[in-house]
């Protein structure tokens, strides 16, 4: 084992320790704390890049904590799924970059260091969740990023945010509990907690009912975390009322953890030949189809920009569920690619929406008429992001959807392609409404007329992510190549065409 493997636990320890130190070091010094948080996030990103290069040159990296070999100790792994960690850390850096002005304007100075502490702890929790190879460890990291996420939503002012955070907490706690119940059932059945060990033991287990119950609990728990329709009801309020950098974090990254959980669950049960796995695939296809249509329609009828974006997240999580449910290599790799691409697009969109909210104080699309003249770069970034969200080629949104459509053909379910197209058209519908309002209507509000372009620290992440969103589709082949081994691990090599 290369000594570089010691870096793997660091992706968890580094941001969390930085977060723990933040309130002690920077009480009432928000700006200094921002620098500290940014430095910690960049360092974590660098660590992830180093690990990533190591992964490219060799095989999967595994780290036994305390030197206890699995299954006796806790193991962390850096595998194909950990590619997501790279994206997580990179986007966190951009979110933090954009957060400074927003936090200065909206969070009281005595609480700014707490805000950054929660963001860093959230990042560490997500990194740990992605790398966890132990069932209970997965639960613990899930709680770390969940608790910090509930609090981050409530950091926004006003009655809507507090209630949204509380709803998010209640639903989140029940879903976490389902995951814990599944862990308990699997442990009672196998006596082990290490995922690959449990997977092997489950394959020979003689209690299909208990396995099926554990599978069901894990799936429902993670479907809630991933906000798959109709278990999405907590998401729109929470994501729309949170402070905008937090919205970007939640909608771009935190919901994706549900997908990570689903993928880990699929791998866990891949060898156990129990019937519900087939039912699960069908369920995911149907839920995905409904989510795509319902999310897009609900986004269309919203008046507030951030609510539109939140419902669009519901629709996009539907695409990902659909891809996983189709269970062919192209569909699953499409779903994984879309996970990464949607994270990029939606982080950019929410950060841009945050700039607009901060500069104008307006949130309704009708009030934002004519903003294109006053804030051309920010509005332009929003338009590019929206175009990418509809999935016009060659934007980032296109690759995943195209792959999922190909997968639908492989799976002999061509009708799904119609749904994918319909979802794209509906998205285009509300996107055009926003674009029309921004660029082709005269201003209706004084605050739009007096608005100035967003500060540089907010413009840079917005524009960068917008450019990435429209151009990243060109590099789609690279990303698909990266996620393919993982897709094969999920659906099993027998599906290979």
């Amino acid at each position, binding site marked *: 084992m290369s000594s570089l493997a010691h870096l793997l636990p660091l992706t968890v320890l580094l941001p969390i320790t930085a977060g723990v130190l933040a309130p002690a070091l920077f009480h009432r010094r928000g700006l200094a704390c921002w620098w500290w948080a940014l430095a910690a996030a960049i360092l974590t990103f660098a660590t992830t890049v180093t690990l990533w290069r190591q992964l490219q040159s060799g095989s999967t990296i595994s780290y036994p904590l*305390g030197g*206890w070999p699995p299954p006796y100790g806790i193991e962390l792994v850096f595998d194909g799924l950990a590619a997501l960690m790279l994206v997580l850390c990179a986007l966190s850096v951009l979110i933090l970059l954009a957060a400074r002005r927003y936090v200065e304007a909206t969070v009281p100075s005595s609480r700014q260091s707490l805000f950054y502490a929660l963001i860093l702890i959230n990042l560490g929790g997500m990194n740990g969740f992605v790398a966890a190879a132990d069932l209970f460890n997965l639960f613990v990291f899930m709680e770390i990023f969940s608790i910090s996420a509930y*609090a981050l939503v409530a950091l926004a002012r006003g009655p809507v945010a*507090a209630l949204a955070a509380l709803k998010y907490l209640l639903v989140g706690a029940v879903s976490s509990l389902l995951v814990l119940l599944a862990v308990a059932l699997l442990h009672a059945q196998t*006596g082990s907690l290490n995922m690959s060990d449990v997977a092997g033991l489950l394959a020979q287990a003689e209690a299909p009912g*208990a396995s099926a119950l554990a599978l069901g609990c894990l799936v429902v728990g993670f479907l809630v975390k991933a906000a798959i329709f109709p278990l999405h009801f907590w998401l729109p309020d929470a994501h729309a009322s949170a402070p905008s950098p937090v919205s970007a974090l939640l909608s771009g990254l935190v919901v994706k953890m549900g997908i990570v959980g689903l993928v880990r669950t699929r791998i866990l049960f891949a060898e156990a030949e129990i019937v519900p796995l087939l039912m699960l695939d069908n369920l995911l296809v149907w839920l995905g189809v409904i989510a795509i249509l319902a999310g897009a329609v609900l986004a269309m009828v919203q008046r507030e920009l951030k609510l539109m974006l939140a419902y669009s997240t519901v629709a996009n999580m539907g695409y990902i569920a659909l891809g996983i449910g189709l269970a062919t290599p192209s569909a699953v790799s499409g779903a994984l690619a879309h996970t990464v691409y949607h994270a990029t697009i939606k982080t950019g969109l929410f950060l841009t929406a945050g700039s607009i909210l901060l500069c104008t104080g307006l949130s309704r699309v009708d009030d934002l008429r004519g903003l294109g003249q006053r804030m051309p770069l920010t509005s332009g970034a929003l338009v590019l992001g929206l175009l990418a969200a509809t999935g016009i080629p060659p934007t980032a949104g296109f690759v995943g959807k195209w792959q999922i459509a190909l997968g639908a053909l492989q799976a002999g379910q061509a009708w799904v392609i119609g749904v994918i197209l319909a979802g794209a058209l509906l998205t285009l519908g509300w996107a055009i409404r926003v674009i029309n309002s921004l660029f082709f209507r005269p201003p209706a509000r004084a605050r739009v007329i007096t608005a100035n372009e967003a500060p540089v620290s907010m413009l840079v992440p917005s524009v960068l992510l917008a450019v990435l969103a429209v151009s990243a589709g060109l590099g789609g082949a690279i990303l698909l190549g990266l996620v393919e081994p993982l897709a094969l691990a999920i659906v099993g090599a027998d599906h290979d065409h």
Partner: protein
Amino acid sequence: MRNALALLIVIVLAGLMMAGVSQLPPPGSPDGAVHRHVAAHYIDGGTEAGGAPNLVTAVLLNYRALDTYGEVVVIFAALVAVLAVGLSGHSRGPRRQPDELPVSPVVDRIIRLLAPFIALFALFMILEGHVLPGGGFQGGVVLGALLILLSLVLGPRRIRRMLPTPALFWTRAIAPLVFALTAIAGLALAGWLFALPEPAWLRELILVGLELAIGIGAALALVGFYLSLEADHHD
């Protein structure tokens, strides 16, 4: 109507759960999978491998130290969360002493009299946690309860002022910080993050240090929860 529907759903779910749970291996048999596999390895390893005669402590602080690190991070995150979203400071109402809970002189006396003994008991639980049942967290909870009791007698403002703010934040962060230091010590002395280095006395020292940190962290977190629920009365 809605309640009846919910009842139906809950009954169906309970039925499914019952069906699944009934297929689990019967509990209590020493030949069950739970006892033969990983747990048997821990028990066979004994105090020597685990570092502590109380195997629960050995699992918490040695074999599965990362989980316990996660646990202290969860409490710390909850404390930061409570401080960040709590009411105090959000809307400054008139500050009042909490006079709705009058403490009778007898109770006052008893609390003051018992306080040193409770503190001693908590300390005992923390320091002996690796040998006997109990441990850092349990002792910390007792210590936290004692501080809450004392605040009834002395007034929350006095408890709040016991530590100046920056020092308070350092102390609150003690559990995750000591864990991180232990992780690094493990890497330096035993080659793996979170490993407990030899010799035995060093191991025991580290275990006691960890338990102390967990205890202090838990106690301060509880006081933090209590103060943010009690602070600034709104009517």
